[in-house]
């Protein structure tokens, strides 16, 4: 048993899992406040990364202004998508809404392939190549930055929903739209805001992923990985999304370890989350932290 490799993989899993958690959080945010399942979440992630990359490479911006510019862009984009695509579908059956976001994801994927090309592009070096040694393990600076950013995003989320006025309005809307409306909350604005925040935070995740690896359209895989994460954590729990993301990240790396050391079947880490997903759906469909759905007739 190779403990050092195992430990390294667990750390990797934790770091990747935190990013899954951030994207899962965005996914849950949209689901909780607008009852829409966003199959285009992965494309949001990629778009954020591409916009930041393009503004560094083509517009010649330094990294920090480019970062801020892409966040502003993503916010507007999120609002645009909500108003144009999702607002007309309010009250339609689940399948219509799911298909609309799937259509959006196909559309965005093809458009980004066209505009930005199929290649993986690297950011110019922002954090340097150095590695930091933590408890005898070498961790790349970029990974560390991604970890720190994930934690900051989560903390801001926590503050936003617990303390801020808008966060309260969003929680009220998620609880019951009619009551929220009667208290003077504009549900339309809350919906738009949910998409804006979700797109913005996905954009951050995309930029971080782009810094760690490289920017390419295949980053959209994270949009698929989010599903096991949110189901494990519970669809309507933001904490659940984070925990689910970390679990899936660690699980993937564990599967890779077991696969590489013992089973030798190859690619196990890609499907392992989906087996877990099926099992969770069979025994506890509302996940670890989700509310159990009780129907009264």
């Amino acid at each position, binding site marked *: 048993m190779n403990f050092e490799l195992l430990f390294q993989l667990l750390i990797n899993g934790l770091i990747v899992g935190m990013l899954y958690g951030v994207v899962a959080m965005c996914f849950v945010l949209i*689901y909780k406040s607008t009852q829409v*399942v966003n199959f285009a979440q992965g494309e949001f992630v990629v778009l954020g990364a591409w916009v930041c990359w393009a503004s560094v490479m083509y517009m010649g911006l330094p990294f920090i202004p480019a970062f801020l510019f892409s966040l502003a862009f993503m916010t507007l984009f999120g609002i645009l998508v909500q108003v144009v*695509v999702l607002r*007309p*579908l309010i009250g*339609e059956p*689940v*399948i*219509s809404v*799911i*298909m*609309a976001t*799937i*259509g*959006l*994801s*196909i*559309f*965005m*994927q*093809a*458009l980004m*392939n*066209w505009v930005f090309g199929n290649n993986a592009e690297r950011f110019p070096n922002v954090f340097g190549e150095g590695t930091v040694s933590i408890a005898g393990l070498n961790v790349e600076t970029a990974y560390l930055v991604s970890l720190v950013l994930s934690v900051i995003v989560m903390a801001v989320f926590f503050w936003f929903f617990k303390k801020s006025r808008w966060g309260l309005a969003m929680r009220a809307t998620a609880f019951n739209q009619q009551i929220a409306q009667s208290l003077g909350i504009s549900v339309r604005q809350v919906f738009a805001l949910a998409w804006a925040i979700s797109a913005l935070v996905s954009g951050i995740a995309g930029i971080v992923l782009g810094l760690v690896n490289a920017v390419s359209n295949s980053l959209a895989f994270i949009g*698929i990985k989010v*599903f*096991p994460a949110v*189901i494990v954590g519970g*669809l309507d729990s933001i904490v659940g999304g984070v925990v689910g993301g970390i679990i899936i990240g660690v699980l993937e790396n564990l599967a890779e370890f077991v696969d590489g050391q013992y089973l030798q*079947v190859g*690619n196990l880490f*890609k*499907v392992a989350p*989906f*087996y877990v*997903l*099926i099992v969770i*759906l*069979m025994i506890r*469909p509302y996940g670890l932290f989700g509310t159990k759905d009780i*129907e009264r*007739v």
Partner: protein
Amino acid sequence: MAHLPYPRPAGDFRVTYESDMTVFKTVAAHRWAIALAVIALALPQFADDAILSQMIMIGIFSIAALGLNVLVGYTGQISLGHAAFFGFGAFASAWLFSVTALPVLITIPLAGVMTTAVGMIFGIPAARLKGLYLAIATLASQFILEDFFARADWFTGGPYGALAETPSFFGILLDTDSTYFYLVLFWLVVSYLAVANLVRTRDGRAFIAVRDHYLSAEIMGINLTRYRVLSFGISSFFAGIGGALYGHYLGFVTGEAFNILLSIQFLAIIIIGGLGSITGPILGTVFILLLPQAMEFLAGGLAQVFPGIGHGVAYIKEMSIGAAIMLFLIFEPDGLIHRWRLMRASWKLFPFSH
């Protein structure tokens, strides 16, 4: 699903339950069906191979879409894994032939039966779920089956793919488009009639009850688990038939073809065609398969004005499918069949539109 008035000729009253349940509602509909069948039978004599192979593809995808419509349109369950079952049918038929050496015409329905079994296995976890959870569970089945295709060398040939034998009918090799067309046409007619009859039966009405309100259905004594699994099985059967026909048509099957995009395409077909109708999936298939070609034509024209468009044709095709899904959901959620019924109604009621 909106219910339109179905205008009948004056004096055509339905006085018994049986007469209200006929497949062909009017004499004209019956004649049209016969006329269409005759045209279809005569078509290979006139059409060239390019058109025929297009028609074969439309036929194959229509069969699978008919199956998906039983599941999504009639039972109200979502499946994001239809392409995986379609692919399973293709591999199953090729595998059955290589193992048992039965004639291909027999392995095609057997592949359908095998796919039914697989579909029911994946339908068991799905039977407890609905809506979004079901969508995600079927997404998982798509990825698990895709992984199985890549892994199971004995069944699929692994990364090299599997060879699918050309079918023969009493010594006549169905290796040209014009002969294969008849095989696909046969299965399309069988599938169409099977689905049309299915929705008139007790089981079909149970499916619709599950879709419309599953709690009421359960209270009325419909076994939800049974009907949900059954619906998965039926939909997988048609997917398997379609897949087997697809495999034998191409002669060669690889796992990459049956990815999530194809699953989405199947869903797009039935949404654009019209959920919960029998002719809808066929209209939807025609639309989705011809749309990329229409886009290519359009982009070719535009490229003369804006040269930049020329190299983006492949992307424009893909984008057009995504855009078509969104536009139909926003502007015509009941699909092409609804548009067609409106046209027919207004024509029948002319000049008194009410």
